[in-house]
């Protein structure tokens, strides 16, 4: 299987550096797969599940939230705000966050800014739980 170099960076450090056969993630425009020999490309990431297929065909799932994706001269850079591998996700914490956010939304009476924050929290929790399932 042909591969391409991929680097995944977040403020918590460089999470992945190496050859992969395929990268799938959610962008602001919907899901997207990057395969080897992609043309130069740039887009913004949305919130959603992502996975990479390694050279040997094994698959690694992750939750990807915000950031950018660029392909430059065959090298793919993913600079995400958060990128968590499936095994690193804390289900209990995400479940807690989901419940808390849902309760606050149900309560109502939030200002616009608070509403956006709570909604973003809920979305993040849902993405994390979705990856775990």
């Amino acid at each position, binding site marked *: 299987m042909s591969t391409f170099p991929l*680097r995944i*960076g*977040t*403020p*918590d*450090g*460089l999470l992945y550096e190496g050859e992969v056969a395929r990268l799938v993630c959610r*962008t*602001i*425009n919907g899901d*997207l797969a990057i395969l080897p020999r992609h*043309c*130069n*490309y*740039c*887009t*913004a990431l949305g919130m959603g599940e992502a996975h990479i297929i390694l050279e040997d065909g094994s698959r690694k799932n992750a939750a990807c939230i*915000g*950031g*950018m994706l*660029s392909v*430059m*001269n065959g090298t793919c*850079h993913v*600079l995400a*705000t958060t990128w968590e591998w499936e095994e690193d996700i804390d289900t209990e914490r995400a479940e807690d966050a989901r419940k808390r956010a849902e309760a606050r939304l149900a309560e109502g009476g939030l200002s616009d800014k608070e509403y956006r924050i709570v909604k973003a929290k809920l979305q993040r929790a849902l993405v994390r739980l979705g990856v775990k399932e």
Partner: protein
Amino acid sequence: MAANMKAVKLRIKSVESTMQITKAMELVASSKLRKAKERADTCRPYFQELYRTLQEIAKGNTEFYSVYVKEAVQEKCCYVLIAGDRGLAGGYNANLLRCFEEDAKGKMVSVLPIGKKAVEYVRSNNLEYVTDAFAEIADISVADCFEIASILCKEFRQGTFGHVELCYTRFVSILTQNPESVPVLPLIDIAKEEQGHNEKERIRNLILYEPNGVEVFNSIVPEYLGGLIYGGVCESVASELAARRNAMEKATGNAQDMIDELNLYYNRERQAGITQEITEIVGGAECL
């Protein structure tokens, strides 16, 4: 004679207590430094990657519709000035502010200070500032950085200023920290910076933006700015602690030298007193 000796003794005591303080500060700084250095180290690849990627994009850019990319109309420049919270860190704050002054000379500036010293500086010089809500660099988190970024982006879009620069201290090693000022927005500025370094590489890479350039930049730039500010904060905090540790180490050494010297002086005085007393006794005995 005796009064002089007492004064010397008091002075030794006071230097000793100062030394204790500097020693304690050194220890505190070095234990904090370890954590800060780790944070800066984990964050650095992201910081560099982000800047390099955006630089490449800017270099190959053929999209001039987004405000974040095209040449600025407004001359005014906004500096994100990251300094420390406290003094007693050698030349750390002074060096950074000097770097800022040199870079900002002759420009119309507006500042977004981070850290107490930066806020104080801005106030005492009557500079225009965007917000002073981020006075404590010690409790700045990633979320705060993204908030700063969104404030900056909003102002930038409204045309309050045409350039954004990041002024911070780069942590090279425990012994060296360099203050520097890097252009951040618009993206064409960072492409210019690169071209200054190597003139040869002028080939444009064509890039496909999806869904379109304006939207991509609108969602990327706040993230990029936030990431860059966070990187700057991590580096600056590590630099501040390293600078303080070095300054305090030197201060402790100097205090020790001073104590040694004073002790020598004190002993000499004491000896002189004893000798004089003996001479007096012997002289008195001879008279009898």
